[in-house]
């Protein structure tokens, strides 16, 4: 394969305030190549994709298309240059037809100048051809809302093909597909490859990488760790690159004495989300929950905190069966939940820092429903100091803070309720290294005080570094539970992707 690269990225860096999302990375792809982009969540894959598709402008470095430097100002620029991306979550208009969805943004128009009315006939015909091309047996006039998830995904692919792209980016294209549909997708990918298109393939599933990809690039923490031909790699060599061997000093797991069981979960089910979940949580323990996105970890935590209802199963707190119908009841029982989505669930960005911290406590701090502003103030000040929130004052809106400090507000908010059980869901997602270490220290200190902690994380080093035990979930099931000593990155990752034959291990 001596063809010249169609797309080349040289020395690309991308900084966000406080974070280096990409640190001088290189990447290149040739026509007729399927290139796997590999890395954990937050490794920098999506940032790279966004730079390629013109959504972000890199802080430093060059993007060369066919050897010439490009400077995309928008996603539309990239699209007209022949780059298209198929996203994880299909971005479609459910109330419109397949034809309308495929040609959204680049309608075919009548008249020589292309400025006449919309040419439905041509578009419908083109859609028919595209659908035939990918062997999708649906009508061009079908409404997207009437299609299944897999069919929608195929329509997305047809849409990508409709603009005659030279570079096609597929971000976890198989996550919603059945095995047979994956085979169909492979066929399409192979055909595109034979036509000389370049395909960037992002997936967490190793078997797919080995089935379909020619080359790979591995990222970790915004840095290029390795690249090469898939035929020269093994699953374990790629996992090694992904997670790294050394668990650095970021995870100051202190010593704590593991006490009695506080929480027992037995055969917990929520139809459509998770099945037969059982585990115990001890005082002074940090219990890690690892899995890929969509493994059902968050859904389990939502039930434990009373946001959603379980379909069946039992939860016992200090030996007594409990069933929380509202978060308030879980809070009264001593549970605190730091949710996954900081902006939508964790904080109220337009309220002040102080009001955010005291929000779960307003009832306890009030007298006959009347606010005690002094007591609130002192509580907020105490915890803001304890957690070291850096702000221009507690009356500032929370939206004025950096991501890391916003997360500290969420921590302060929940620590101030004095929980016995603290559930943290992706507590360090998208925050800088310094704050990350601070969060880990706080969690570790709480465990040392005898509190029970559940740490949900998609970051393997974090789970391995912080947990006493690790529960691994895959598609709604618990696949394995590891003790700290026996957990190594390869085993845990294999359990998370539920490699056939390894489940019994």
């Amino acid at each position, binding site marked *: 394969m001596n063809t010249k690269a169609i797309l080349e990225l040289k020395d690309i860096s991308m900084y966000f305030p406080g974070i280096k999302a990409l640190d001088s990375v290189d990447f290149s792809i040739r026509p007729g190549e399927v290139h796997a982009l590999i890395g954990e969540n937050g490794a920098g894959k999506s940032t790279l994709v966004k730079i390629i598709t013109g959504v972000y402008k890199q802080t430093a470095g060059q993007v060369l298309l066919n050897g010439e430097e490009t400077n995309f100002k928008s996603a539309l620029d990239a699209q007209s240059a022949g780059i298209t991306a198929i996203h994880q979550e299909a971005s479609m208009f459910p109330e419109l037809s397949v034809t309308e969805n495929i040609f959204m943004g680049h309608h075919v128009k009548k008249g020589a100048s292309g400025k006449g009315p919309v040419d439905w006939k041509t578009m419908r015909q083109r859609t028919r051809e595209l659908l035939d091309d990918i062997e999708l047996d649906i009508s061009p006039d079908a409404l997207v809302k009437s299609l299944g998830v897999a069919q929608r995904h195929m329509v997305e692919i047809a849409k990508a093909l409709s603009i005659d792209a030279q570079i096609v980016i597929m971000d976890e294209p198989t996550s919603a597909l059945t095995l047979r549909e994956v085979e169909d997708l492979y066929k399409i990918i192979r055909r595109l490859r034979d036509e000389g298109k370049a395909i960037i393939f992002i997936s967490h599933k190793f078997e797919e990488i080995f089935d379909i990809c020619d080359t790979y690039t591995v990222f970790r923490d915004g840095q290029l760790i390795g690249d090469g031909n898939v035929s020269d790699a093994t699953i374990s060599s790629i996992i090694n690159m992904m997670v790294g061997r050394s668990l650095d000093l970021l995870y100051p797991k202190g010593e704590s004495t593991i006490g009695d069981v506080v929480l027992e979960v037995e055969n917990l089910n929520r139809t459509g989300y998770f099945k037969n979940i059982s585990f115990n949580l001890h005082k002074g323990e940090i219990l890690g929950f690892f899995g890929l996105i969509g493994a059902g970890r968050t859904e389990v935590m939502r039930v434990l905190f009373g946001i959603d209802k379980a379909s069946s199963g039992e939860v016992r707190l200090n030996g007594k069966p409990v069933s929380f119908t*509202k978060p*308030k009841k879980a809070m009264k029982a001593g549970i605190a939940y730091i949710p996954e989505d900081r902006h939508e*669930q964790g904080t*109220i*960005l337009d*309220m002040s820092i102080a009001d955010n911290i005291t929000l779960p406590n307003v009832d306890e701090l*009030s007298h006959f429903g009347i*606010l005690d502003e002094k007591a609130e103030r002192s509580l907020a000040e105490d915890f803001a100091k304890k957690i070291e929130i850096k702000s221009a*004052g507690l009356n500032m809106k929370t939206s004025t803070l950096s991501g890391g400090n916003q997360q500290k507000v969420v921590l302060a908010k929940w620590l101030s309720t004095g929980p016995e059980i603290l559930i943290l869901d992706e507590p360090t997602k998208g925050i800088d290294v310094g704050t990350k270490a601070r969060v880990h220290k706080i969690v570790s200190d709480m465990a040392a005080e005898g509190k029970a902690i559940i740490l949900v994380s998609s970051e393997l080093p974090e789970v391995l570094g912080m947990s006493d035990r690790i529960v691994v979930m895959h598609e709604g099931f618990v696949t394995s539970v590891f003790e700290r000593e026996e957990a190594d990155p390869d085993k845990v990752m294999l359990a998370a992707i539920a490699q056939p034959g390894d489940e019994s291990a």
Partner: protein
Amino acid sequence: MSDNLVRQDRLIDEFSFKKRISRLFSSWEFILFLTLVGIFILFSFISPYFMDYFNLMNASLSFAEKSILALSMIFVILSGDIDISVASILALSSFAMGNASVKGAGSGTLVIIGLATGLAAGIVNGFLVTKIKIPSIAVTLATLSIFRGISQAILRDNAYTHYPLKFAYFGQGYIGNSVIPFEFVFFLVLAVLMGFILHKTTYGRKLYAIGNSASASRFSGINVDRIRFINFAVNGLFAGIAAVLLTSRIGSTRPNIATGWELEAITLVVLGGVAITGGKGNIFGVVIASLLVGYLKFGMALVNLSAKVMVITTGALLITAVLVPMLLEIAKAKQKLRSQRSELKLERKAS
């Protein structure tokens, strides 16, 4: 060391004091207040009858009922909902009182019937919104027709015009021997009460939280639906209060009573600086807006401007009310972007 800290603290205090003052002067409530003063000055020059104590007091009768509707509407809108059925609830309430009055009910009973009807109608709204989970705009659009439809179907072209003599006090009475109408004082009392709930209680705090992010509120242990339910129930009750006052004042009930008042109440709330999307605003703004619209109309009526001009003026005011905070927001966002950019530059230099 500690001296240094103290000095720093004081600096921060002065800083925030200055900031608070500047925030007050650039606030929407302050702009409204200045406009209100401006209107008073303007009309006192134009008409010799405007700055007359008795006239000013009596004029309050023309806006007190609508302003009372606005007081509870603040709660509904702050939490991100809307209730366009209040004027129909008022009509239903008035109808219920008229019907009872014909059958010989005394004024005490009438008040209870009026309030209970309003409350019940509000509970129906709240139930449909929070338990059946229909969007509030759809629910109240439907009940807007239904509540008024009931009185229209039964009354047709007729009217109830027989009310007990004592019943007239609520809408026509004055406090003691003064010239201060009972309605106006009642409005002010309710404004203080609702302001207290809004700004000094956990209920109010939770309301703002819900209006800003219902989902984050839920994750903070707030019973979002219970608060939204109570808002609708209270909004119905306040429509019942307005029904008692209005029915008492005009002494009759026709099916078209208070037509269009729901929009006037919402106008006062939005003009008062409450974000129609919820989460932002306060009681002062709405009270000032009530006085402003009320006295603007009074003044315009004094100088014989037609009703149409008044409607156009309120419309223009409303657009201004939405536009000015939006422009302020855009200016702030631009400034923020600028400071972020320079921060990034500094960081790049550092690394």
